[in-house]
């Protein structure tokens, strides 16, 4: 019954979407703008219908209605409630349904917030989003229908993929990823809308879509970090990033979105890079679809690949349509879109932004080539190759290190131009930061140019960004006699975009520091221990206490309890790495135990055990600064949130009057040029 209602809701949504998308151009061409309400109505109706279908799926999952095919495939009576609910995105059909719901939500929100904007930008954007939604609705109506009736009704199901029911981060990573991925549809829709409505030669659409891009960028960044965390906490290998095709697929649009967030500022300020910014919008969306295609079609070997049927062919057709349609629109109109502004001085912020875009694009292309190369090699040379860490590290790391440096340079350079002497003066403080952190890195044992540069540049950029806060706060403090806390708050409120951006920079720098330190200074050992025996890795000692077993409804748990010993051999804590044997699978799911501190992680994984408890083989990994990666991700999101709720350029706190002490820089409050 549930299946029937939901299936029909999805069928109706196909018709509603098609109607809404077709009406829009007629309404605009014929000048009957009141018809546009039909398009907007279709957007809202689609949201209601897909919400209904999604809610019914959750009901079906929770009530173990195994007459619904998706529930029969991923449900199980012994699975805990939380994991039953989140198995909504645990397999192909459910994840497509969830995707369609997020897209419907975004489309409804865009129409709701921008429905009164004059011009044809929003109607065309709504049409574009409906067209994309139409693709997913078609998938749900046919090849990825999650509501196929099952008869006879099974008594129980296998439960979700065991890897996906072992950690609570599975409740976090996928929804964030979808919010990020699907959100990229909005800037894309604005870009297409801008071309169709002849507004692409103004900067308005790019500014309008900036906030949506920022939100999606933050979601995607948080999703990537949460995915790294999940991999770290569940897979038992002590790593968080493997350059797996699907990891790369999530990283690619994040790179172009980051480039967009910077290039749109140049477009706004200097009237440059208009075509480029539009291309970044389009590329970001295409890369999200490409990423989904790579995950869902099974054409690349990946840990994330779902088992698939024919859905890959539909995605291929969709990519082809999207590529051809956008290329025709963008390339065909490129002369009209192209901007006419020009660059300020060499030592200016826009120069840094250009370099930033150049390097981000370089990293993106490197990762893209590395990801697709196995396919190219097989097509052209007929050989199977796999492209792994060495390629990506060698090719992408230099550009990433350069980006860290630029993150420190950009904030301290003004728009327009400055003198070389002035630029040099502004680099003194960051350079000291670079020297300090670089020296710490070398003393800790960092060798190799990129390792040392990474430390030094993180130091440079942290100081470079904090210095902007310091200068602004000091100016307010001196001018208004504000307390430092008030000065900080008012400073941020006065220009949320700018200071939010610096917070996001700090977050990214924490991530960079955590990745650099944990990959250079990682040490690990594996040993088989009898109870009472110890294992020491990088001054951390663990002692095996016992090996135990426990039965839970959906799994058997084998664990080892180890004492963590302090310097004098006293017990300062315990760790309990486990292996979870789910009843439906032969493969145990490792569940390492991680003891975190600011300085880093003690990561203990149970590799093997003797069933009678006589001994256990454990792997102990010491990874410095790993928690900084997770924390940095959070800071990045905070920065994005600050930047998102700016009140526009005109409403700002009045600039601080020049105080008795001369302000060090004339641009403290960022007056509009």
């Amino acid at each position, binding site marked *: 019954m549930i299946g029937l209602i939901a299936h029909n809701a999805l069928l109706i949504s196909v018709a509603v979407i098609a109607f809404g998308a077709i009406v829009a151009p007629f309404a605009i061409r014929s000048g009957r703008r009141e018809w546009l309400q039909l398009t907007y109505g279709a957007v809202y109706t689609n949201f209601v219908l897909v919400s209904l279908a999604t809610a019914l799926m959750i009901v079906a999952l929770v009530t173990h209605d195994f007459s619904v095919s998706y529930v029969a495939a991923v449900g199980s009576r012994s699975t805990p409630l939380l994991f039953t609910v989140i198995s909504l995105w645990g397999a192909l059909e459910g994840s497509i349904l969830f995707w369609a719901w997020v897209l419907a939500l975004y489309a409804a929100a865009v129409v709701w917030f921008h429905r009164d904007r004059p011009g044809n930008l929003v109607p065309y954007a709504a049409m574009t989003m409906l067209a994309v939604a139409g693709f997913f609705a078609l998938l749900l109506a046919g090849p990825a229908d999650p509501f196929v009736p099952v008869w006879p009704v099974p008594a129980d199901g296998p439960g979700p993929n065991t890897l996906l029911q072992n950690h609570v981060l599975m409740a976090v990573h996928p929804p964030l990823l979808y919010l990020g991925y699907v959100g990229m549809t909005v800037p894309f829709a604005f870009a297409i809308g801008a071309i169709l409505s002849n507004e692409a030669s103004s900067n308005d659409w790019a500014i309008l879509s900036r906030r949506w891009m920022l939100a999606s960028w933050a979601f995607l960044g948080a999703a990537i970090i949460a995915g790294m965390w999940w991999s770290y906490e569940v897979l038992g290998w002590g790593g968080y990033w493997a350059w797996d095709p699907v990891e790369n697929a999530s990283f690619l649009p994040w790179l172009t979105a980051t480039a967009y967030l910077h290039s749109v500022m140049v477009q706004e300020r200097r009237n440059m890079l208009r075509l480029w910014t539009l291309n970044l919008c389009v590329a970001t969306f295409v890369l999200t679809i490409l990423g989904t295609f790579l995950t869902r079609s099974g054409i690349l070997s990946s840990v994330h690949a779902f088992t698939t049927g024919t859905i890959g062919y539909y995605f291929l057709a969709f990519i082809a349509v999207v590529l051809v349609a956008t290329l*025709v629109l963008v390339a065909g109109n490129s002369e009209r879109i192209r901007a006419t502004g020009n660059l300020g001085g060499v030592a200016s912020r826009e120069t840094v932004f250009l370099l930033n875009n150049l390097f981000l694009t370089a990293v993106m292309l490197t990762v893209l080539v590395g990801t697709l190369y196995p396919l190219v090699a097989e097509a052209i040379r007929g050989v199977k190759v796999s492209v792994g860490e060495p390629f990506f590290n060698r090719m992408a790391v230099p550009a990433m290190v350069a980006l860290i440096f630029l993150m420190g340079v950009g904030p301290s350079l003004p728009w327009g131009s400055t003198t070389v002497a002035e630029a040099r003066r502004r680099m003194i403080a960051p350079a000291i930061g670079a020297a300090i952190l670089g020296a710490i890195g070398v003393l800790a044992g960092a060798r190799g140019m990129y390792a040392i540069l990474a430390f030094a540049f993180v130091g440079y950029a942290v100081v470079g960004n904090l210095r902007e806060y310091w200068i602004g706060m000091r100016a307010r403090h001196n001018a208004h006699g504000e307390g430092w806390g008030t000065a900080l708050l008012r400073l941020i409120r006065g220009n949320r975009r700018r200071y939010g951006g610096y917070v996001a920079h700090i977050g990214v720098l924490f991530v960079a520091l955590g990745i650099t330190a944990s990959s250079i200074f990682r040490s690990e050992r594996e040993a088989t221990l009898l109870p009472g025996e110890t294992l020491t890795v990088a001054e951390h000692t663990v002692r095996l206490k016992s090996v135990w077993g426990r039965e839970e409804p959906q799994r058997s748990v084998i664990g080892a309890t180890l004492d963590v010993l302090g310097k004098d051999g006293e017990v300062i804590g315990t760790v309990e790495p486990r292996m979870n044997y789910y009843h439906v699978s032969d493969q145990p799911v490792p569940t390492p135990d991680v003891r975190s501190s600011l300085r880093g992680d003690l990561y203990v994984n149970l590799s093997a055990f003797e069933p009678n408890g006589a001994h256990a083989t454990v792997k102990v990994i010491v990874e410095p600064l790993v928690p900084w990666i997770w924390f940095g991700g959070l800071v990045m999101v905070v920065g994005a949130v600050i930047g998102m709720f700016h009140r526009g350029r005109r409403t700002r706190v009045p600039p601080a009057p020049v105080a008795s002490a001369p302000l060090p820089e004339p641009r403290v409050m960022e007056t509009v040029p």
Partner: protein
Amino acid sequence: MNWKRATIAVLASVPLIALFAYGFTRDPGEIPSPLPGREAPHFALEVFAPGEAPLARRVGDTISLRELTGKVTVVNFWASWCLACRDEHSALSETARQYAGSPTQFIGVLYNDRPSLGANWIAGMGGQSYPSVLDERSRTAIDYGLYGVPETFIIDPSGRIAYKHIGPITSSVLRSWIDSLLPGAATDTASVLETR
């Protein structure tokens, strides 16, 4: 609208789409094994499940690959916890019985499992015509580059691996390989590999 530029841009995207379309014709999970054609890694393993007459071996006997030179040897890795092993069980057991009179030897190798569970499984499946051996610490499985169970290796009379099968094997695959490798077939591994 500049149609020339638009056309060029679209043409530039064709190779990418063609590449993805090509991708569908490939299975990325398929890893070609370097083993076929090479000498089979040696093993000498202890029997824990005897099998049935006339193929039976005493429990505790050691089966060594070296003593099997001159026979077509079928080595099947299995486990009691492996669902797919149930599917191939009767094909293996019956084919082994059919070839009982010719120079062949079937061996089951228990993988990552306890002998008592393995013996129970055999009893539950209605018996196994040929003997199964224990692989302490999975040494043999590692030598054979086992990826999972079931996997089956067919070794020719000269001790070379002729064929590696991943997943449940069928009796027709078994029969065609054994027939082509039996001494009377006047072929060797190399030529069989070539014709395939």
